[in-house]
């Protein structure tokens, strides 16, 4: 397959338009299944009661917040290294969705923390590093739009994205490196102690958020392509 063919904004515009509705549809189906398993089938937690069901959005949102930042930074790095227009546009298109999931992770974490820990917020390493991630997303978006020439904005924001990568291992390992109020990982590559229905509901929601993110990024990148390429012949011919 000739991958450089799809690196052309005009080609990718059409491809993204065809794929986005499928990803949104898949996300909706997965979310319905995940919410049904999580809210109707998964048993009540013996210690936390019903409030633990926040897990079905909090954990997927937190995972997506980190994963989207990683993908955004990879696109930003590719755009810097190879000066590719589409990679920079993809990095821009991922940032708002990443910021949204970071906000959701922090918000739902606060509403889970209050009944379980007795507080909405603590200056705990996991929570603070996740908040730093939200500021990194805001910084990326602000920097990308701070220049009249979008290519300069792309480069400045890409640098910030790459520097901010250092925060990802801090978020992930914070619960091991420091004594935190936030609990350690329940799901590991080596296994989990979770009930199968709880794990199924959570994973379905992870895939729902994942496919939603792809759909949202593809939709947003189409608008970015149109804006940037509006003086080209192919856009005028649309």
């Amino acid at each position, binding site marked *: 397959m000739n991958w450089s063919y799809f690196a052309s904004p005009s080609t990718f515009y059409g491809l993204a338009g065809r794929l986005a509705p499928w990803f949104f549809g898949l996300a909706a189906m997965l979310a319905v299944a995940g919410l049904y398993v999580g809210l109707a089938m998964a048993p009540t937690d013996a210690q936390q009661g019903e409030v633990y069901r926040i897990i079905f959005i909090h954990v997927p949102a937190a995972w997506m917040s980190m994963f989207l930042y990683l993908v955004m930074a990879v696109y930003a790095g590719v755009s810097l290294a190879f000066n590719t227009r589409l990679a920079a546009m993809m990095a821009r298109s991922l940032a708002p969705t990443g910021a949204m999931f970071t906000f959701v992770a922090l918000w739902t974490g606060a509403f889970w923390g209050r009944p379980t820990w007795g507080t909405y917020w603590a200056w705990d390493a996991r929570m603070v590093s996740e908040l730093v991630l939200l500021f990194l997303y805001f910084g990326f978006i602000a920097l990308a739009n701070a220049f009249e020439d979008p290519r300069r904005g792309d480069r400045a924001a890409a640098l910030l994205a790459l520097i901010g990568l250092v925060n990802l291992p801090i978020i992930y390992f914070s619960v091991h490196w420091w004594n935190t109020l936030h609990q350690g990982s329940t799901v590991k590559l080596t296994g989990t102690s979770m009930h199968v229905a709880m794990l199924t509901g959570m994973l379905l929601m992870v895939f729902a958020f994942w496919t939603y993110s792809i759909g949202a990024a593809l*939709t*947003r990148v189409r608008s970015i392509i149109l804006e940037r390429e509006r003086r080209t012949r192919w856009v005028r011919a649309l």
Partner: protein
Amino acid sequence: MNHGFYLWMSYGATAIAIAIEIATLAAGRARARRLIEEERDLEAQD
């Protein structure tokens, strides 16, 4: 406070956040279309 409050605040805020993002996606699309129209108008004037 009962646990329903915390659950509704979490699920409700998530639904609102996603709805806002979908609205901004539609707004971005409309903005791009408007810019293209402006470009066409400028070209027509020339």
